[in-house]
């Protein structure tokens, strides 16, 4: 019979495993993946722990992949220069289960903002090199993930188009009012 301590450790490991799998399932680019495929993604991700005040990534650094927050809080901060003065704007505050930087899986474009941990934060990173590796090693799984990224991009493009047309409408109305 296994000792209670060992059972406890195994239980803890299992629950951590489940937490990771659950977090992966909740990310939009890993939608519609089977349990086996989720396990495959789990094997490809890197677990990192950041202290309060650590940056996960910094603005303008080359994008290399995405992060899923397992525990903790992350602020997305954008630095701007107004004249010679540097200002910082908090764009979002992300918590456990949220994810960031998924479009960096496609190219090395510089990060548009920095990700700062405001408390002890545990993350899971999934990177472009591993996605390309997955396309070679598990083509079906790789294609599913790339298709999901394309869907996310499509959704965002539609929202951007909608916002743009709304803005144009407003602009037209404003012009008409002036006339």
């Amino acid at each position, binding site marked *: 019979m296994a000792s209670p301590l060992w059972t406890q450790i195994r239980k803890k490991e299992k629950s951590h495993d489940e937490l990771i799998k659950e977090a992966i399932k909740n990310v939009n680019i890993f939608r519609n993946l089977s349990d086996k495929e989720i396990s495959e993604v789990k094997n490809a991700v*890197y677990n990192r722990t950041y202290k309060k005040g650590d940056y996960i990534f910094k603005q303008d650094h080359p994008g290399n992949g995405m992060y899923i927050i397992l525990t903790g809080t992350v602020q997305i901060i954008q630095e701007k220069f107004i004249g010679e003065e540097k200002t910082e704007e908090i764009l979002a505050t992300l918590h456990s289960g949220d994810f960031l930087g998924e479009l960096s899986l496609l190219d*090395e474009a510089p990060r548009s903002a920095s990700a700062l941990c405001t408390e002890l934060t545990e993350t899971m990173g999934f990177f472009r*090199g591993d996605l390309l590796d997955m396309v070679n090693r598990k083509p079906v799984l790789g294609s599913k993930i790339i298709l999901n990224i394309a869907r996310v991009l499509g959704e965002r493009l539609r929202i951007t188009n909608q916002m743009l047309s709304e803005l144009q409408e407003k602009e037209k109305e404003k012009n008409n009012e002036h006339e």
Partner: protein
Amino acid sequence: MSMSENQRFIIRLILFIVLTAGFILILPKLQTIITLIVISILMFTLLDPFVDKLESFNIPRAVSTLLMILIILLLIALGVSRIVPLVENAAQQISQSFSSDNTFSNKIESGIDYLNSKLPLNAITTDLPEKINELLNTLRQKLPGVLMGFGRGLINALSGFFFVLFITFFFLKDERAIKKGIIRLVPNKHFEMSLNIMDKIQRQLSAYLQGLSLAATSVGVTSIIGLFIVNTFFDAGINYIVLIGIWAGFANLIPYIGPTAGAIPAILSVLMSQPPNTMLIVVLVIGVFVFVQFLDNTFVSPYLVGKSVELHPLIVFIVLIIGGNLMGLLGMMFAVPVAGIIKVAFHEIVTNAPKYRS
């Protein structure tokens, strides 16, 4: 600089000097193991895409790796079973002519006489046959020792070969775990940069080594085809064409010296078999190797090996000397690929690291 920073700097400097000195002291003792690990890394980088391909057919990673290692063993066994009888035959033929009234040196001598009679000047030195005889006599005296050394070398090579296969197997099977293990040591601050650079280096190296092996194979195959054509149409009597082709392919890994070293066995074979028109055949054989080099340098290597890994001739010269000093002929063969790997790694670090500066 404050006092504590000064102290920290001195401690770091002492630590660096002690570690470097220790490393330099231990290095000669670790030379063999380091060489075997470097060869395993080269093998891993070369074979990884093939294992990935096998895995893409839904074969588990461990089974794909085992299959790849078995394929390699099978290919080597097949090659050895084909090549050993050829080497044996060649050795027998040489030793026969070697023991029976110096036929070997006589043949070379008459071949050289023939070439000299056709050339306007005594282009090839006339005391060459005596020198060959002297060399053969020395060889005859040293043969038992050489054979014992060869036996010992063979055992070492075999154990080294299995060590390399063993390490390569684990590199291939546990690639991801090893990469994760290495990256775990990197602090968060440099994590993304290190991962990015590691990925890029691995991809570039894989392409470079595959290109090199394809280029060597192409040189081997085209040499065999060329020599076969010369043999068929000019009744040249060149023996062991396949063996010469394989040698030419391997020799091609050594820049500058390789192409010449590849052609020498073929020319010797012509001189030994003394076909009619020896001069013409020798010229044709040289022509075949020049044409093979032209094909390789113009059409094959630039596309397969890539310009980014091109090394300056001076660097090539230096690394060849270092490789030759460390491991002889094998060292010269591995010198350029290893230098290429270092260049790719250095290039990726220099290009990518500044992008991560704040």
